[in-house]
């Protein structure tokens, strides 16, 4: 027993095991999120949502996964098979990898990199590759349009996303996410979302666009290009794309919480739960994800040119101005 625990001290093994645990968490999270999505949409839309499988419909995700596993994986006849099948993997891996640097609690982080923010930015931009692969490999006009939209959107929104991070980095003076959380303190008014409010909103909007949620779900656009880049996928490949979407949605929420809403820190000092502070992290992440779903079921979709206008003409200038304001404030105080 002791030797096994000692093995955990060996760096590559510890990394593998803890990343395995995180991967397990992410995959389950995707299932839980599909359920949450359907329940939330149900309550918003005057209906119950799934309530047949298991108690209160809670086993619905299991039934879904079972169905998807048993479904035949159809690929279009003239598709570029390797690209087609590689795309879901290329989408899922970056979404899962970002979890490496997300701190759940002071000690509970897979890899406390000193360039964690850089890592996050680098890995999320790889996600666009999977979208392009899916659209190109499917060989359909709808997929191609979806992929082109996805690539344009993800690369454009990368800019405000990165710029809105810089304020936090300037305030903290570190690129490590653990440092960022620790610098925010354990009171709600010292968290960065207040002094960095425009950056927080920009990051939130750019994050929505990055994970392709309504109102920025143009690459999918189910009423115009019928699913876009994922139109030809079925069975497990489709499920993998869905899992990647939900994982990246969860990771964007988690990073938002880490950067702006104080990570695992309790909102007030007396609410400190000690070793159970990860509960705060979970609660905040769930709240952000709920707002994602709330928005999804409430508003229509933007058009491509309007999306680009919003990104380049509003979000980028706002972040730049606030960068100067932050720099000026740091110089004065």
């Amino acid at each position, binding site marked *: 027993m002791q030797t096994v625990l000692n093995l955990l001290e060996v760096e590559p093994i510890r990394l593998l095991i803890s990343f395995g645990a995180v991967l397990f968490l992410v995959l389950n999270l995707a299932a839980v999120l599909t359920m949450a999505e359907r329940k939330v*949409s149900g309550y*918003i*839309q*005057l*209906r119950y949502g799934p309530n047949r499988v298991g108690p209160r419909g809670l086993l619905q995700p299991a039934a879904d996964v079972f169905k998807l596993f048993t479904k035949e994986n159809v690929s279009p006849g003239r598709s570029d098979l390797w690209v087609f099948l590689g795309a879901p993997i290329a989408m899922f891996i970056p979404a899962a990898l970002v979890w490496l640097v997300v701190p759940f609690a002071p000690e509970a982080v897979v890899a406390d990199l000193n360039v964690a923010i850089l890592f996050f930015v680098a890995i999320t931009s790889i996600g666009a590759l999977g979208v392009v692969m899916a659209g190109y490999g499917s060989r359909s*006009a*709808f997929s*191609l*349009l979806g992929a082109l*939209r996805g690539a344009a959107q993800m690369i454009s929104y990368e800019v405000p996303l990165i710029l809105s991070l810089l304020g936090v980095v300037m305030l903290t003076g570190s690129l490590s996410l653990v440092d960022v959380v620790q610098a925010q303190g354990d009171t709600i008014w010292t968290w960065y979302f207040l002094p960095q409010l425009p950056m927080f909103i920009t990051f939130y909007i750019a994050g929505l666009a990055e994970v392709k949620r*309504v*109102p920025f*779900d*143009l690459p999918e*656009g*189910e*009423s*115009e*290009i*019928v699913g876009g880049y994922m139109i030809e996928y079925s069975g497990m490949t489709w499920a993998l794309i869905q899992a990647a979407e939900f994982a990246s949605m969860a990771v964007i929420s988690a990073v938002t919480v880490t950067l702006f809403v104080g990570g695992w820190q309790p909102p007030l000092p007396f609410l400190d739960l000690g070793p159970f502070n990860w509960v705060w992290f979970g609660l905040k992440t769930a709240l952000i994800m709920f707002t994602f779903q709330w928005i999804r*079921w*409430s*508003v*229509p*979709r*933007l*058009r*491509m*040119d*309007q999306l680009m206008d919003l990104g380049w003409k509003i979000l980028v200038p706002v972040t730049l101005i606030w960068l100067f304001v932050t720099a000026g404030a740091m110089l004065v105080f």
Partner: protein
Amino acid sequence: MLGEQRRAEHEGALTEPASGRLASPDIRDEFGLETIDMNMGPQHPAMHGLLRLILELDGETVVRCDPVMGYLHRSKEKISENRMYPAVIPITDRIDYMNNIAMEYGYCLAVEKLLDVEIPPRADAIRALMNEFGRIMSHIPSVGFLLLELGAFTPILYAFRERERIQSIFEAVTGARMMFHYIRIGGVKADLPEGMTETMWEYIEGLEKRLQPDFVDLIGGNEIFISRTRGIGKMSQEKAVEMGLTGVPLRCTGVEFDVRKHYPYGWYKNLDFDVITDEAGDVEASYRVRMGEVRQSIRMIKQILENLPEGEVLGDLGRRLRPNEGDGIARIESARGEYAVHVVSDGSDTPYRVHYRTPCTVNMQLLQEIVPGHYLPDIMPIMGLIDPVSGSWDK
């Protein structure tokens, strides 16, 4: 051989060679860029049924749009020639399945013109009453569909809540939720059941209260909705009249034309209502016109319910209808526009020829004209402006 050709035709999206026209040829010619052809439909969630659009795209800009119809063609005109006069009514029900009652109404009016019969006043009033309910039942979901196609999923469920409730009223009155077969030649099938006027009154007052918060405040004030619909599908009055548009697409450009007002039929002569028009002539204007028309329908239903005449609801025309030779042409304002029925009689039991002038068929010509130049996602709000129904354009 035939199969081979069929397959060759459907291989890929191409049916005709691309014209190669680009939206902005001056910049793009030097790069040697080409347009792509895209087949939207017939199996497409936003095509209001089974419509196929052959699109030619330059990036996201539509260069050419060619609607192909006929995927739901059930040859109702031919079937109508093979049935006795009263037996055609269920066929007309299937034309516009969002607003069935108006379809029956038009046919019955046309046959009554042939027969030259008087309708009992109570039947006339009930026809107008149910017709206005039918209009609400069609207009509110059409707004929901418009939002659905813009990417908001929720409004359609609120819209269908209203439709379901009106369907329950229809079920109590006619016995069916969708294919009513209620309006008969010479009147209506049955009188309103006991207590129905109170139920209708209650529902209408409730709808009046819900309309503003559910369908006006939440939708009309939404920034994204406005940015997606304002100025989209814009057309001038000349264009609208030239294309033969009727109904909401015509009225949203500002041309005041409503068959109920200008070619009055049935009980509408006794009713007081306004023709809603809007100047903008775009998708947002059509949404406003639809909401205004729902309000007018509520107003009309209240008027009818306040003075509903007493008496018979179905005149006795005998078992066998044999109109004299001639033409019976009647037109009514359905929820989608001017719906006209032309019945030609040769003196026998069956109509010699029945022609349905369905508003959707005519209004959809607009797609060819105004879609080129718009972006691909703008096709959906333009479809919402026309609001066609598959059964109605294909007959």
